[in-house]
């Protein structure tokens, strides 16, 4: 069985084609369509991915204008009936601005855009984006963003509800300040909603799914996509 995913192309998305490439040519079991944000209809899809980029230039605030796109209304239907709604990088920013996910993403504390490979520690392995991982796995994956400093005024609740899915760590899984590239609260890199079908995080799994692109020839990015497939399969069966 193949699952059907939509990758939304907002005005200004720029990892849309990269994500489509990985979904259709690298990982198994997925058939993905690139869908212009004004034309998206949720009923055709098992899940939706909001890709990275600069939707509407990230003008005013990363993700805010895109959060008002008709695509988000469609995605809300999917959110409510438990289908995966996933955001990478700009997609994560959009999901927080649309209030699908708690918290906000602020400017990196260095005030600079940062493009580099980081390590990510898995904190919750039951979500739509992490069920193929083990807790405390450390994954190699790149980030590329200027507004990725995660902030919430509700940290306790997130912790209690197990909504923190990924944190930036060292290669050995330590949550140090040096391992935190952007000043995120408690090294938080990604979070989920209570139902765990909506997950967003700052890194770019589509850039970490082929050995040739990875400094250490890892393909950890694939785990994220496989998790989406698995989540859909479990949901359906």
């Amino acid at each position, binding site marked *: 069985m193949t699952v059907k995913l939509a990758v939304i192309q907002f005005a200004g998305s720029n990892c849309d084609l990269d994500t489509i490439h990985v979904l259709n040519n690298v990982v198994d079991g997925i058939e993905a369509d690139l869908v212009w944000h004004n034309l998206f209809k949720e009923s055709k899809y098992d899940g939706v991915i909001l890709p990275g980029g600069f939707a509407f230039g990230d003008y*005013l*605030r990363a993700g*805010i204008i895109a*959060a*008002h796109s008709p695509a988000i209304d469609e995605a809300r239907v999917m959110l409510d009936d438990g289908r995966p709604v996933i955001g990478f990088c700009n997609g994560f920013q959009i999901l927080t*601005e649309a209030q699908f996910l708690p*918290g*906000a993403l*602020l*400017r*990196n*504390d*260095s*005030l600079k855009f940062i493009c580099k490979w980081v390590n990510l520690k898995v904190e919750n392995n039951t979500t739509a984006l992490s069920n193929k991982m083990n807790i405390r796995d450390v994954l190699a994956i790149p980030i590329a963003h200027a507004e990725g400093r995660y*902030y*919430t*005024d509700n940290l306790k609740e997130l912790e209690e509800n197990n909504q923190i899915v990924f944190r930036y760590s060292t290669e050995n899984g330590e949550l140090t300040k040096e391992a935190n590239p952007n*000043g995120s609260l408690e090294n938080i890199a990604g979070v989920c909603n209570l139902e765990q079908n909506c997950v967003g995080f700052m890194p770019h799994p589509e850039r970490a799914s082929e050995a040739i692109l990875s400094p250490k020839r890892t393909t950890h990015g694939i785990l994220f996509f496989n998790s989406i497939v698995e989540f859909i399969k479990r949901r359906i069966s």
Partner: protein
Amino acid sequence: MNRQEFQVEITLMNKPAARDPVGETIQKDLLAKKGYDMVFNVRSGQFLSINLKATDENEAKKIVEKMCNDLRIFNPVTQNLTILKVSKS
């Protein structure tokens, strides 16, 4: 009903808990470059000047307030909104 043109000026500033790296950096630069040690605090924010049609100043202000809330022009998790000024334009 006669509609006129108004200008509403607003600022969006990070709440203290969300920090303000821009302000902090300017302040740090100031101290580093000396000569400006009389400056003891800098806060930064976003400024928007909005021109709109409304019947009066009160309505202009109301519209902007509603718009900012409904469309989340400011993010209530991290920011405060201040309406600085409403004037005829």
